[in-house]
Every structure is written in structure tokens, then in C-alpha cells.
């Protein structure tokens, strides 16, 4: 069952410039595992060193955040479309409040 993973512009340099990648997967976890098995350089920008999806990386099935579905166990069907969407975040160094 091929599903389509849309690759955001900054990460296309790791997928040979492809805008989307088709992978065989029954759920979101499998889709991401297959994607990063094919394109290993993507891994560090999606996962932390201990293998967890980075907290600022969101996965959408169509227009729904998988966090509000069944997370990475969300089942996928033929022709489903997954998007990788960053929560853009940042900030300053925290002030010392010790004194």
C-alpha cells in the first residue's frame, strides 16, 4: 500500500531533491521508518540521538495532526498523504534568576 510522504523544502537536499517519497506502510511509524531507511541523512533532522521523533517535528495525515489520532500507530491506507511540519520555535538564553 504506497503512501506519499511530502518532503519539506529544507529536507529535500537529503532525498535527492524529491518533493515527495512513496513508501509501503501500514501505519505512520512504518512509513517514517521506511523513509529514513531509504534516506539515512534525514534521520538526524527528524529524530533525536536516542531515536525519538524530535519534539518540534509534527506529522500530519492530510490536515490532521497524528498527535490527535493514534500517534505513530495511526493506520494508513493506500494513497494517504503524510506531511512533515516543523513547529518553528526559538528564544533567548534564559536569564540567571539565582541572584
Amino acid at each position, binding site marked *: 500500500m504506497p503512501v506519499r510522504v511530502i518532503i519539506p*523544502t529544507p529536507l529535500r537536499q537529503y532525498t535527492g531533491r524529491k518533493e515527495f517519497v512513496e513508501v509501503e506502510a501500514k501505519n505512520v511509524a512504518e512509513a517514517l521508518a521506511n523513509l529514513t531507511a531509504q534516506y539515512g541523512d534525514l534521520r538526524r*533532522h527528524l529524530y533525536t540521538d536516542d531515536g525519538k521523533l524530535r519534539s*518540534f517535528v509534527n506529522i500530519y495525515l492530510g490536515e490532521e495532526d497524528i498527535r490527535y489520532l493514534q500517534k505513530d500507530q495511526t493506520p494508513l491506507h493506500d494513497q494517504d498523504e503524510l506531511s512533515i511540519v*516543523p513547529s*518553528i*520555535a*526559538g*528564544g*533567548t*538564553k534564559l536569564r540567571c534568576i539565582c541572584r
Partner: protein
Amino acid sequence: MMLKLDQSHLDQIRQHGARDYPSECCGILLGRADAKDKEVREVVPLKNLRHDSARAQALLPLDDPGRETERNRFLIDPMEQLRVEKDARARSLDVVGYYHSHPDHPARPSNYDREHAWPWYSYVIVSVQKGEPKDLTSWVLTDGRERFDPEQVDALNL
């Protein structure tokens, strides 16, 4: 790569930084990119979602919500990001980067900035000192995620 903007884009970013002081402001840079440069066509100011702490905390939890607030953290709603990106694509534009302010802090990326970044994008930072916008810099994350490299900002005087 080099980031090309009009003077009016730089003014928009600086003014947004001053307007939202002492909170952090944020927004998206839309434009076109080739192998050499990124050229900004539009600056899209957005709401710092850290003002809505419950929703922000559900999306991207902070380690220390007592000390981390909209004054030292910003967050762009991923739904907004999707909406802006889709709208841009329909006009053959792409998200080329983001901007945010550092109230009463230098225009240098923090470790928190680095942990939440992807390569390729331009991350513009404007320092706002006592309400006055000062230095403006742009940064690109290295492939290995170790650090941000400074990016040349070319302001076209149009």
C-alpha cells in the same frame, strides 16, 4: 548562500520586534531560492503562540514553563505554518526562512534556537534593546546540527 531582502522587509521585521517588545515576535519569510541565493518577497508576521501557553505547551512542551514564557520563547503554530505554506505555493513562493526577536538580548542564536531548527532555512534574529530594534542577523544550521553559521544579508535599497 546569501539572503536578499528589500529595505522595507528589514523595516517590517524591526518594527514587529519593537511593537511586540518585551515579548518575542516571530514570522515567516516567503520568497524564491536557487542554488546560490534566497530572495525574500514577503514578510508574514505571525502570532507568537507562547501567548497561548496551554495550547503552546500541548504542542511543544517547555522544560521550565515558570521561566520560559513569551518573553524568551516563541512558537509558530504548525497549522499557521501549513496555511501560509499552502497559500505561498499557490503563488509559486516558498518558505525560505523565519524571523524572531531577542528582547534585551544580542542577535545571536541560542542553544534552544539550534535544537529547534532545520538546515537550509534562514533564521533571522533582531535584537530589541529597551524597545528599540538594533542588530539584525541571519543564520543557517549546519548539516550536522552542531551550530549555526552566519549568513550574509544583502539589503536591496528599493
